[in-house]
């Protein structure tokens, strides 16, 4: 049994189910009003040294306002779940090597640095290649399974990927044997993030949430997180939630703050709402090449604006959002 392989990577979060239960035991349970601003939510709920996770997939259904606010408030030494992180990871990297301390300290990598077909982020590469961020390797599914283990209140779950690779070797996973069939499996330690942010279509002020389209790993993430910030496109009455409880995918029990942020996934895609702003994302990737130009860009778009609404204004405001809405519904293609 002792000869079974195990990864050499570090664990950045405690997988103990018993200790997680203690944290969840202290969470308020009543239906109470959690509506607040992003600034307040981040100030209260994101702490230096926290393990942070962000919902959505890549730049889709991204809680961008929260990620900007983490930068603006200068949060330091975060651990991060790099689960198909694209633009979110790119934004967080802006808090490293730009003269504002070190936002990111540790990253569980499934997918970072890249923005899918759009290419690699020069600054994210700079940050990781500098060695100042400790990385441990996973895959999209195994990192999702780690969140699922936590969502189930367990210390680990098995899966069948990762095996036999350097990704496994640089993970913190272990090979185990099924006690019933003898089949080899990879054991994945539960990941209970200290704090997470998820952007949803609709939420009531208690935190009951609806998502349209793919849920990616957010149903698991919401349940796994010790603290959870929800941003929503639209605040809706509790009465509307109760009219059709089948549509609720995240219950209020998981949620600590609710913030209404229109166009909250910009410049990412929000399914059934607006498409991604590819021009803006391309500009971001381009400007990163030169560190000084990037710092000016960040000043202009993140540090020097008071909130997300002002950022949207600088990116073209409502007329731009209108274009992106047309693109989402293919109305720009003559439909």
């Amino acid at each position, binding site marked *: 049994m002792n000869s079974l392989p195990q990864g050499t990577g570090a664990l950045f979060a405690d997988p103990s189910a018993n200790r997680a239960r203690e944290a969840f035991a202290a969470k308020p349970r009543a239906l109470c009003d959690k509506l607040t601003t992003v600034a307040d939510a981040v100030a209260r709920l994101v702490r230096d040294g926290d393990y942070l996770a962000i919902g959505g*997939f890549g730049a889709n259904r991204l809680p961008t306002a929260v990620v900007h606010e983490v930068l603006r408030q200068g949060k330091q030494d975060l651990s991060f779940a790099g689960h*198909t992180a694209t633009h979110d990871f790119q934004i967080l990297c802006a808090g490293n090597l730009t003269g504002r301390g070190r936002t990111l300290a540790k990253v569980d990598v499934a997918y970072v640095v890249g923005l899918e077909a759009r290419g690699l982020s020069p600054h994210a590469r700079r940050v990781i290649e500098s060695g100042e961020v400790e990385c441990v390797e996973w895959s*999209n599914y195994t990192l999702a399974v780690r969140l699922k283990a936590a969502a189930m209140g367990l210390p680990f779950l098995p899966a069948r*990927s990762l095996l036999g690779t*350097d990704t496994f070797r640089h993970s913190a996973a272990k090979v185990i044997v099924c006690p019933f069939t003898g089949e080899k499996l990879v054991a994945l330690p539960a990941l209970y993030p200290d704090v997470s942010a998820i952007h949803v279509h609709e939420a009531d002020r208690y935190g009951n949430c609806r998502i349209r389209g793919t849920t990616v790993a957010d149903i698991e993430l919401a349940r796994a997180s010790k603290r959870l910030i929800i941003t929503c496109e639209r605040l809706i009455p509790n009465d509307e939630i109760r009219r059709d409880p089948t549509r609720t995918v995240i219950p209020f029990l998981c949620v600590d703050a609710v913030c209404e942020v229109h166009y909250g996934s910009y410049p990412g895609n929000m*399914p059934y709402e607006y498409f*991604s702003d590819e021009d803006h994302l391309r500009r971001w990737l381009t400007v990163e090449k030169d560190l000084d130009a990037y710092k000016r860009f960040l000043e202009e778009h993140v540090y020097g604006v008071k909130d997300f609404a002002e950022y949207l204004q600088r990116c073209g405001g409502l007329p731009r959002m209108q274009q992106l809405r047309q693109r989402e519904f293919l109305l720009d293609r003559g439909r």
Partner: protein
Amino acid sequence: MHYNPMELMICCAARLLEDGKTAAVGTGVPCAAAMLAQRTCAPHLVILFEAGGVAPQLPTMPISVGDSRTFYRGVMATSMCDIMETCQRGLIDYTFLGGAQIDAHGNLNSTMIGRDYARPDVRLPGSGGANDLASLCWRILVVTIHDRRRFVERLDFLTTPGYLSGPGAREAAGLPPGTGPYRVITDLAVIGYHEQTKRMEVLSLHPGVGLEKVREATGFELHVREPLAVTEPPTEAELRILREEVDPHRYCIGR
């Protein structure tokens, strides 16, 4: 009819997809190949995206594996775990992958270039869903440009499993039996794997390409299946559908 290497690669990839099967695809070339297959040889091919899209009627090529196109008029918009567990249950036949490096056994590197993991020369995105899809789907297809930088004797990092160290290695590691690399489609050739050695074996050379050119572009020893065929060039119908319906904006096939 004239065609470019990318168009040829997409057509070759599309032809490998059997009708009535399932394929987990990403954006770009794999998606174009699956869309082309649906319009030619495999009208009942079911495509899935790892972020949760099942059987969409793609109106355009997606930009992201998770954008709203990936479940546009789909039959289900679900979660990543649901898709990956559908793979894990053995319901997904094909997956398409790429990487910065590939070795003779079809193992892929998309994590880093360099010798020191902690201080890479180039940090790449990591596995993403590739390790999972390559572990859990039945057949792995790789579409890639063919050069010595990519086709290497030794990967800097083994991100995603091909046949690992060779015959029996996947099963020994615990990966599901019967899975593994199936074809590599490059701009020079269509490559399979040798039954016994599980190393790459050239199946057909693209029109106008000699075996020497393939060997020069490859950093490891290649088997050759005799008699060595010449890849069937794209048909007019394939090219028309690819250019007019699948990729009218020429995102993949270029200008």
